[in-house]
């Protein structure tokens, strides 16, 4: 009875919630007649909120020139330009009120625009009304009408295949690259309409999409384009079905909905000797762990917005050595300059514009689809590089070296690989200002670049001549650094992870089968013995005493 009531109640609540949810947009649609700029009181309230929460980045005047702007990339939106990226309205049009509300609510992943879950619906709406005051057209024109976004057909293998073909034919590859890693030929030269460099989205990491990663979001972006960026609207070039097909293809590229960051990489034992010539094939058996990468913003020479957001790591070991495969996406190979973990970074550079090909890309920005790229981005001054960091000695207890190149008491071993060279070299780090080359010759490695992805293999003996040994069955802290030469990363200006762990899985992982069977059999035999004894004693054939006390005959129950 009670259960039924509870279920009923739940259902009622759910239905009400659903009803409310479906009614919401209807209300907005009804209101979208005439300029939708709210009341003075709403705008005033919005202004207060804006000055407290938004002006640090977007500027007091809405021009995108706040305190934080020099360090941010992408740059904060300039509201006075009237160009808004994520909309439901046609290309070039202003966003609807709901579009603004949505973006404040949800934020933009992997940018400095956060979500604002703490603000009430009314406050977010007031903010949106205030933002509209920065661009006069909001007040003068009719409220923009959203485009019709048809509902999604089911994704099929056929639609994905079609999408893949269209992806190439339509020219998506030019910026987004052949397999969508944002490594297209013109990617390094892209500029937005504000003259800022801009990167093509990495379509294999849907969780980083600024406008959201659902199929509807992707479809909408292709339909409406992103105002102010080289991303155009494809309403004319492609039919609705074709756009859905590309959407399906893009969705299929990521493989998972989220990044699934891990805090541990498991090194598997392999029977075959690790052969560097075999490359990534050595790692077929090892599970991949994705670690989040953040900018090095702790030591001077900071990198506030590294282009790499994550690394994928796998590890295997054989009788002699352990090998790591580190993979990450990079839109271009940079191997024409220098690289090093100690290269100086002038402090002024922190606030400089992110890497751009100076004066190169105006043309490209105008037409990213041009057959020949007018201006090739100039070669980089710095090389791509990667490093694996482990403590120089196995840490005892909680104490680990400082995660940025160690500290004076606890040094780290840095396996540094300048990707313009053949082999990695080893450094010993006692702090980011105290690195010394300490190559024992133990370390070998190979690197390859394919379709916007670096695959770098490091190999080292399990028990090296000096340094921490990898012992099966134990954990060891491990951290990674990545330098993107194109973004002028070198020295302290780099992307890194904090400490994670590597677990060297013992060679023989005991199978559960034997203990399971043993347990089951023991219990089964025990049960059978008990049942057998009970039947003998109390069964139909032997109706006897119940209690079995020698002293007094128990009552028998018939």
């Amino acid at each position, binding site marked *: 009875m009670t259960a039924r009531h509870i279920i009923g109640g739940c259902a009622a609540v759910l239905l009400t919630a659903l009803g409310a949810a479906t009614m919401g947009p209807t209300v907005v649609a009804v209101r979208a007649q005439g300029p939708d700029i709210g009341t003075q009181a709403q705008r005033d309230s919005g202004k207060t909120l804006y000055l407290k929460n938004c002006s*640090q980045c977007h500027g007091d005047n809405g021009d995108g020139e706040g305190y934080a702007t020099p360090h941010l990339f992408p740059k904060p939106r300039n509201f006075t330009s009237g160009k808004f990226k994520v909309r439901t309205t046609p290309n070039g049009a202003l966003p609807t009120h709901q579009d603004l509300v949505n973006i404040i609510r949800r934020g933009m992943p992997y940018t*400095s625009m956060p979500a604002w879950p*703490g603000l009430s619906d009314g406050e977010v709406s007031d903010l949106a009304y205030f933002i509209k005051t920065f661009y006069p057209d909001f007040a003068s024109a009719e409220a923009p009408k959203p485009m019709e976004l048809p509902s999604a057909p089911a994704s099929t293998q056929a639609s994905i295949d079609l999408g893949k073909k269209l992806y190439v034919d339509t020219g998506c590859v030019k910026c987004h690259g052949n397999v969508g890693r944002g490594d297209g030929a013109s990617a390094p030269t892209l500029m937005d309409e504000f003259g800022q460099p801009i990167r093509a989205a990495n379509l294999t990491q849907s969780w980083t999409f600024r406008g959201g990663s659902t199929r509807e979001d992707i479809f909408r972006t292709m339909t409406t384009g992103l105002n102010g960026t080289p991303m155009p609207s494809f309403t004319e070039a492609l039919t609705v079905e074709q756009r859905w097909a590309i959407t399906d293809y893009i969705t299929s590229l990521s493989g998972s909905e989220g990044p699934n960051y891990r*805090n541990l990489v498991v090194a598997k034992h392999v029977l075959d000797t690790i052969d560097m010539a075999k490359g990534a094939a050595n790692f077929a058996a090892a599970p991949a762990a994705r670690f989040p990468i953040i900018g090095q913003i*702790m030591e001077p020479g900071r990198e506030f917005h590294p282009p790499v957001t994550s690394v994928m790591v796998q590890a295997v070991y054989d009788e002699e050595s352990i090998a790591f495969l580190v993979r990450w996406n990079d839109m271009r190979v940079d191997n024409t300059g220098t690289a090093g973990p100690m290269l100086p970074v002038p402090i002024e550079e922190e606030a400089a514009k992110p890497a751009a090909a100076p004066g190169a890309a105006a043309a490209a920005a105008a037409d990213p689809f041009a057959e020949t790229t007018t201006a090739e981005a100039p070669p980089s001054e710095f090389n791509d590089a990667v490093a694996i960091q482990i403590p120089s000695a196995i840490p005892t207890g*909680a104490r*680990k070296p*400082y995660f940025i190149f160690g500290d004076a008491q606890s040094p780290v071993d840095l396996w540094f690989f300048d990707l313009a060279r053949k082999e990695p070299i080893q450094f010993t780090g006692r702090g980011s200002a105290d690195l010394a080359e300490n190559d024992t010759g133990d370390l070998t490695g190979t690197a390859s670049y394919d379709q916007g992805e670096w695959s770098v293999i490091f190999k080292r003996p399990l028990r090296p001549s000096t340094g921490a040994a990898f012992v099966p069955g134990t954990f060891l802290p491990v951290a990674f650094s990545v330098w993107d030469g194109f973004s002028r990363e070198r020295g302290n200006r780099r992307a890194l992870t904090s400490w994670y762990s590597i677990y060297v899985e013992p060679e023989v992982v005991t199978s*559960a089968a034997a203990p*399971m069977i043993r347990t089951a059999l023991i219990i089964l035999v025990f049960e059978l013995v008990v049942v057998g004894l009970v039947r003998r004693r109390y069964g139909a054939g032997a109706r006897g005493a119940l209690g079995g006390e020698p002293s007094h005959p128990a009552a028998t129950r018939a």
Partner: protein
Amino acid sequence: MNIPVVLAILVVFAFLAFRKANLFILALAWWIGAFVFFRFGFTAPIPASVISIYMGIVSLATLAFVSSSEQRREEVSRPLLRLMTEKRFAPLLAATIIAIPALAAANVYVQMNVPIEPPFFPRTIHPASPPEITVHEKKISIDLGDNPFRELEKSNPQEFRQHVENGRRVYYQNCVFCHGDNLAGNGMFVHGLDPIPTNFADGDTIANLRETFLFWRASKGGPGLPEEGGPWNSAMPAWEKILKEDEIWDAVLFLYEFTGERPRAREEHAQ
């Protein structure tokens, strides 16, 4: 306490009492009820090791109770004996005989396949500060000092506003990436940090701390943590390398201003 679970257990027992259930069923219900209570009845879950101790005790007690008088023994053993001896229960008996080892085997499997987790080391979140630190060659007393600009709040509100505004600039140029736009410790790099950055907006943390403590943490950062403060994992930079002393004080002012908290006053020495 996990109220729904406790209520559910109580409901089941009320039902059993109402039905005047057989002692065997009751004992079983007690045992299972105790397990469910220990396992799910608490919002902070009880570790498996303790649950096994408790269940061992409950098992002993249940056995003791059901066998503690002739009547109880009789009441408990009857359904079991019937299950094991009567023909019409044969299928049920067979099912039970197979089910128990199967469950035990499944349990063994689950026990052997718990995911590997890296070792975890607890840390002191707000370790004690040193009495005095040196920032930019100037000695600053953490115990006895105060934010030099705090007194402006009353004496010169206009200048105070300027300091707060400067602190705001400092914050949004340096701290926002980790501590977040709304100071809630949820900046854009949070997913890559462990321990996670301090949430200033939780209405609790900075209200319990003195401004000099914040100054110490900001200027010396993770590398300046004492041993017990979870050494060398914190990504908090030593801001003295980048910021001027005044900038740090201003940023501290801004933290309190933005969140509407008041810093903890210096405690007067007893006696």
